[in-house]
């Protein structure tokens, strides 16, 4: 299974009826790099994430998914995407195990029950809780389940849509740490967030959107203060 090592976004335009959400955004997302996608509400972050995740069709422009310079398409691309949002993407009436079994089925993952148990061990979801309906979980446990769900498919392109919302400080920082380690194993990580503290020191690529356009883009390493300063200078 080819793992993605680059996603190339070129002159992306997206209109919703009369509204313009993206007005020609070009961006390169690379393996082993964590991109922070920043901007105000309505700046186009979520739309950009939607187009990259293949769930929103662009009005114009293109997104290329590359493996060794060769383009990957269709189901192959979706097979490589892991999504983590502030919603858990799991069914409340099903247990953690059942939720992951469904995912394993849809993604045709071998290893079955053992792989699922191993993943739940890895994210640290309580053994007893695994047999309970997911709607009874605390916010932190739900986040763990969501993380297990995203990692179970072993994605090479990890998209995060406000993953820190609703987490306490410790939870947010430990999630940030997990993302950092994923980045180090060669995944493409893209985070849409308002929580600059959680990604400070980990992100190495900052892109700030304003009114559907790329207002700022730079690679480097950033402290919390630097991120805050960049955000205030370019997002407004």
């Amino acid at each position, binding site marked *: 299974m080819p793992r993605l090592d680059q996603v190339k976004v070129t002159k992306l335009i997206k209109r*919703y*009826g*009369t*509204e*313009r959400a993206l*007005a020609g955004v070009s961006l390169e997302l690379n393996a082993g790099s964590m991109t922070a996608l920043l901007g105000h509400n309505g700046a186009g972050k979520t739309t950009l994430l939607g187009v990259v995740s293949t769930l929103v*069709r662009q*009005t114009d422009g293109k997104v290329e998914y590359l493996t060794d310079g060769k383009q990957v398409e269709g189901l192959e691309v979706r097979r490589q995407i892991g999504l983590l949002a502030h919603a858990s993407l799991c069914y409340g009436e099903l247990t953690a195990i059942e939720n992951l079994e469904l995912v394993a089925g849809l993604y045709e993952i071998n290893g079955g029950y053992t792989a699922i148990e191993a993943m739940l061990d890895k994210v640290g979801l309580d053994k007893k809780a695994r047999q309970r309906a997911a709607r009874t979980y605390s916010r932190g446990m739900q986040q763990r389940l969501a993380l297990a769900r995203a990692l179970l498919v072993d994605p090479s392109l990890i998209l995060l849509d406000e993953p820190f919302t609703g987490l306490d400080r410790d939870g947010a920082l430990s999630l940030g740490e997990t993302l950092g380690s994923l980045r180090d194993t060669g995944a493409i990580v893209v985070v849409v967030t308002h929580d600059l503290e959680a990604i400070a020191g980990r992100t190495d690529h900052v892109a700030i959107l304003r*009114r559907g*356009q790329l207002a700022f883009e730079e690679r480097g390493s950033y402290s919390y203060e630097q991120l805050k300063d960049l955000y205030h200078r370019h997002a407004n």
Partner: protein
Amino acid sequence: MNRAIPVLTVIAAVLFGTTFYMAITYADFDAALFFSQKIFYWHVPHAFMLFIATGMCGVSSLFYLKTRNTKWDDRALAAAEVAVYFGAAVLATGMIWAKAAWDHWWVWENRLTMSLILWLVLVGYVIVRRYAGASGAQLSAGLAVFGTLGIPFVYFMVNRGDNHPMPGAKGNVATLTGSMRITFWLSVLTFLFWFLAFVAMRIQSARAEREVRELREKGLDAGILT
């Protein structure tokens, strides 16, 4: 398109005057309904246009969904709005006809029933388009495509006719003769030009809206507007 609108409008206006005059003075009186039959020259051509507009809306919607080219969306919307007008006129004149012919304001006559159902689909199109927010264009396109697919089913449903007992339908185009026949087909031509003029104008205004919006966006990007 721009230049076609005045031409179409003038042709439609001239034809309308001629047809109106002919319907009143030239065409023979109907043996049973006398003057009331004159509404036929308005009612039936409008029904034809309703069907043409519905088809146009359905086909354009399908192209829009498949290509996402907004030009098809403009066409579908124009056709739908024009069809809502033609449909309303068909139903109103149909009621007048029904009152004259059967002494009821509404009867479940085959073609009237079919017009009503088509009209409901198109009113649905306009409502969805208006109130569904950003995905309105897409949703209403889906509605139009399924609605158009349903036309043959509506036809068979209505003509099988064991849902509603219908009084014998009166006024068949094929039975028209002589002066009535000529007037009728001229009337169809008249409303065809009405239809074309309306659609052309509506497409034009949809385009103008888009251009204004794009200009505004350019202004915003350049920092001239806020």
